[in-house]
């Protein structure tokens, strides 16, 4: 830095000379007294009227407000006192009324108990009379039993006489019952024909060899029993308990392969009804018979000549 001319040049900078009249000007500005003294304060301006009286007015307003609130509260207090006195009177009246009501309830209860006693007395009187009547009936009981035995003996005699004379009438609904059972049998045969047809469709047109073989296509094993079957041949509860020999229908085309539609598939020996391979059910009239041909049975009607296959 010593060889650098900048700093010496800066220190040798020329000094500007002040104007000649500057000193006089500056001397005039020197204060006459001790410097820095604050100038005497001007008298403060009088604040406006509202500002001077604002505290008093505010205080007065607050005081008036308090007085108004105090007055309102005093009036409310007096009202509440009056209300309290009135409520006390009402309470005293309610007490009196409650006492009267209790006395009245006691009187009512006493009257009710009196009525109950009267009713009990009447009931006792009625029971006494009933006991007397029953006593009379008990005394007459041996006579009534003797009369009953006598009447039973007379009725037995009359029934025995009627049986001996054969005057008992047949059941008037027997014919209708028989008709209903025949219709049900025809329905069973239709189901059997349909089930056999479904079986044949699934087995290359070969019909079932036994009823049990078509168990999958039969709806229920109970349709293998004719409704008019003799008593004591009830169907078992489940398929597993069924045996082929218990079935009341006869399978006349067992294991037939693609048979003639007019061939007989099954027969009911009770009603002499048959179901054909085509699914139709026929009730064979008297004189009709079944003829075997090529291992299959066919119907021979009484008026028709025997058909040859």
């Amino acid at each position, binding site marked *: 830095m010593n060889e650098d001319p*900048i*700093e010496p040049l800066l220190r040798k*900078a020329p*000094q500007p000379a002040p*104007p000649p009249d500057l000193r006089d000007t500056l001397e005039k500005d*020197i204060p*006459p007294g*001790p410097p820095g003294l604050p100038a005497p304060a001007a008298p403060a301006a009088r604040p406006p009227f509202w500002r001077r009286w604002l505290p008093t007015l505010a205080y007065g307003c607050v005081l008036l407000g308090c007085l108004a609130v105090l007055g309102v509260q005093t009036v409310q207090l007096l009202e509440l006192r009056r209300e309290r006195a009135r409520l006390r009177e009402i309470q005293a009246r309610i007490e009196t009324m409650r006492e009267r009501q209790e006395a009245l309830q006691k009187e009512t209860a006493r009257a009710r108990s009196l009525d109950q006693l009267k009713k009990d007395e009447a009931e006792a009187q009625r029971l006494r009379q009933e006991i007397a009547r029953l006593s009379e009936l008990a005394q007459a009981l041996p006579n009534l039993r003797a009369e009953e035995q006598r009447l039973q003996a007379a009725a037995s005699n009359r029934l025995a006489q009627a049986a001996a004379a054969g005057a008992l009438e047949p059941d008037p609904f027997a014919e209708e019952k028989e008709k209903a059972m025949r219709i049900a049998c025809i329905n069973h045969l239709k189901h059997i024909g349909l089930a056999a047809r479904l079986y044949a469709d699934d087995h290359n047109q070969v019909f079932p060899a036994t009823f049990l073989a078509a168990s999958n296509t039969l709806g229920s094993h109970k349709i293998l029993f004719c409704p008019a079957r003799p008593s004591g041949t009830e169907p078992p509860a489940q398929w597993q308990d069924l045996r082929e020999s218990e079935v009341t229908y006869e399978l006349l085309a067992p294991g037939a392969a693609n048979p003639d539609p007019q061939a007989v598939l099954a027969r009911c020996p009770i009603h002499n009804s048959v179901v054909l391979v085509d699914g139709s059910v026929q009730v064979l009239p008297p004189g009709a018979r079944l003829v075997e041909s090529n291992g299959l049975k066919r119907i021979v009607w009484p008026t028709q000549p025997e058909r040859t296959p």
Partner: protein
Amino acid sequence: MAPDEAQLITQAQAGNRAAATTLLGLHYARLYAYLRRLCGSDTEAADLTQQTFLRVWAALPSYAARSRFSTWAHGIACHVFLDWRRRQAPAPWQPDAWWNAQADDGPSPFEDAAQRDLACQLYQEVDRLEDDQRQAVHLHYYQGLSLAETAEALGVAESTVKHRLRQAIARLRARLAERAAPAPTP
């Protein structure tokens, strides 16, 4: 601080007008020169000097002699100049013709014309420095205040003044080198 100056200050604080006048005579030329170099105008410098002394008289009772009166007055002048500067609209920099006048004629401390020309360029470049650096250069180099006094007048730490001066010298050196370099041929 000279003992006479201390007595003068005490008397001026007590309201002695003659002492205040003597104090004024001791310092007003230096303060005027300081403000003249900063603001670049004779008229403005006179006004600023007047404002400075008005503030000096107003603040004189609070002067506690913790620093030299000259330093204290330079601090006030510095603030007066900054206030004036804030009120002024920012104007583009123009070289001060006074420096040229100082370099051209009259008695000069410079040895030869080359040095005078260099000084003229240097003073113009000082005026183009940033305010902080320019204030430090003016107070320390132009006004001859020490580093501590410069820091006291500016209200900053002494290390800050050193830093600003170092930056200012570096920048001035760079700019003078730019000026001295030959212009590129087209």
